[in-house]
């Protein structure tokens, strides 16, 4: 395949995805109306605060939820298969082999009773027909690739003997063992120190470039997004409220939520004493409004007529999309006072 042909190939398409959880025999929508596409060679970041549904979204893609407690509707198209309809056995062939996953907490993602080499080898046993020697060689190669200084020694160690950064490297090695086209990283650096975080993000970027794979990066840290991602989806209350490339979202944010979030970061040069605070709080699952813009209660100074009843995505050109028309008339409260 030529370089240009691989570049625009879509790997995953999500259409109108809704995931509901059962609470007291009633289903509540945790995420709804999710439409997204991820192309080869692309890092897509999904940002939002806790409870906005970003982890629910990736767990739905990976099929990690208990089917008796959840209801998933819509389509998740991965390489021609609809992941919402396939059997558990088929799913197992995809997970680990074609989609790799990196979890937030590397200590709980690794088995404390198994040596590192056995844990990485497990993926290879499940998904490849390599011989034992080949697998062992591949394990060492992988450890080297994720920047472990002494692969032979580390391979024989147990997770508790490694530092947090090293453990996360092992989790990454497991995720990329079968060279998947597609990696999901759920808050991969949240539990790590800033200097280690920088190393892990650089590593992820290098691996992505080397394997021409795609990454969905889930995070709440806007700095991480700005440094790593190509495209950004901002989520609020279970819906994507803004889509665009990093430049559009950070330099020309449109949705009131995105703008408020960027405003509340402590700034480098700002001498002001007060940080910007978004009024109110994120609605809980049971209190989620069925219609209307979920962010409207948090910007009460914007007229109700500026919000749509059933907010839809508006295309602003060049792939930049925003939900609800309220962005057109949005201003910050103190701007009106001035």
């Amino acid at each position, binding site marked *: 395949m030529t370089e240009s042909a691989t570049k625009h190939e879509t790997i995953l398409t999500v259409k109108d995805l809704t995931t509901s959880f059962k609470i007291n025999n009633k289903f509540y929508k945790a995420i709804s109306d999710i439409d997204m596409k991820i192309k080869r060679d692309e890092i897509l970041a999904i940002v939002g*605060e*806790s409870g906005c549904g970003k982890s629910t979204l990736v767990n739905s893609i990976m099929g990690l939820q208990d089917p008796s407690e959840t209801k998933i509707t819509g389509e998740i198209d991965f390489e021609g298969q609809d992941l919402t309809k396939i059997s558990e056995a088929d799913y197992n062939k995809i997970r680990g082999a074609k989609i790799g996953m990196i979890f937030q907490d590397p200590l709980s993602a690794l088995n404390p009773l198994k040596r590192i080499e056995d844990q990485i080898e497990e993926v290879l046993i499940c998904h490849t027909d390599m011989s034992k020697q080949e697998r062992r060689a591949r394990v060492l190669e992988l450890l080297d690739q994720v920047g472990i200084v002494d692969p032979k020694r580390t391979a024989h160690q147990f997770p508790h003997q490694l530092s*947090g950064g090293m453990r996360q490297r092992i989790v990454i090695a497991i995720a990329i063992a079968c060279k998947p086209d597609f990696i999901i990283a759920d808050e991969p650096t949240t539990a790590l*120190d*800033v*200097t280690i*975080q*920088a*190393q892990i*993000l*650089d590593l992820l970027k290098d691996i992505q470039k080397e394997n021409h794979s795609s990454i969905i990066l889930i995070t*709440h*840290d*806007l*700095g*991480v997004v*700005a*440094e*790593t991602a190509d495209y950004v989806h901002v989520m609020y209350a279970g819906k994507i409220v803004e889509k665009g490339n*990093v*430049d559009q979202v*950070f*330099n020309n944010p449109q949705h009131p939520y995105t703008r*408020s*979030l*960027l405003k*509340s*970061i*402590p*700034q*480098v040069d700002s001498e002001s*004493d*007060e*940080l*910007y*605070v*978004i009024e109110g*709080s994120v609605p809980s699952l049971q209190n989620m409004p069925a219609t209307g813009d979920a962010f409207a209660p948090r910007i009460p100074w914007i007229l109700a007529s500026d919000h749509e009843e059933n907010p839809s995505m508006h295309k602003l050109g060049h792939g930049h999309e925003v939900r609800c028309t309220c962005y057109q008339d949005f201003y910050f409260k103190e701007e009106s006072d001035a």
Partner: protein
Amino acid sequence: MSLIKVKNLKVHFPIRGGFFNGVVDNVRAVDGVSFEIQPGETFGLVGESGSGKSTTGRAIIGLEKVTSGEITFEGHDVTSHKDRKEIDYDQDVQMIFQDSFSSLNPRKRIESIIAEPLKNFENLTPEQEKIKVLQLMKIVGLSPDALYKYPHQFSGGQRQRIGIARAVATNPKLVIADEPVSALDLSVQAQVLNFMKKIQRNMGVSYLFISHDLGVVRHMCDRIAIMNRGQIVEIGSREDIYKHPKHLYTQRLLAAIPSTRVADRDKDRERRQKIEKEYKEKQKDYYDKEGRAYPLVEVSKGHLVALPPKEALKYKDIKEEN
């Protein structure tokens, strides 16, 4: 006079082993830390996990036994527990913890949680106590109907505000805030930090602000100390640390913060990798054979850096000339 003065503070934890389970070695969690905090000032203690920043805070308030060193509070020696009893140290120094869920008793109502320090230190009638609790709740923006609720009925940000209300209940002079916002979302974090600043303006309290988040520290702190391996490697005003970092470790830490400037990200990445490479090469110059930082040298007024002897000489010469 400074409010609190910490001089050569050491906290060592014994490693036991061998036949009689004797002390084999020590973990030098805090290894010779000295700093001062002025009244009404916010002093930041920054470092990565394991740098000893939390242990320092816990030793000051008395949750960790001091191995050696001296802590002076308003001129009184408060290193040992006995000395603390003589002045109102336990009332004047309070703490805000990182995890607001485990630091609030799940079986108590908010009223008794916030009233507990008042019960310990002040003789109030039940009515006075209730009025005081309501005042405190108002300061941190909680509505009066929260009085009879339990901690689990609140969100993370609200719980952290309850922790702040409890910490300032006795009108303390120093509040030690150990990672107060690191478990919170961005918008909630802003709110909690604003309340902390407002309280400082109104009550004149000093903060010892312990955090790993350099963005938050820059917003909150007047003076900052950077800790690494149980020692302070650089200490100075906000400008000194962020605009003119001298120690290699400080430079590395600052370069690692992800910024939201999308346009500069390739440049930032290059700079970060350059400093990371430099850190790997020159790291040994900045620490002695035992892996300890060198003594602090004053490079400009109030800006102290643990420079290697060779570079430190430069600054000593300048000083002598003056």
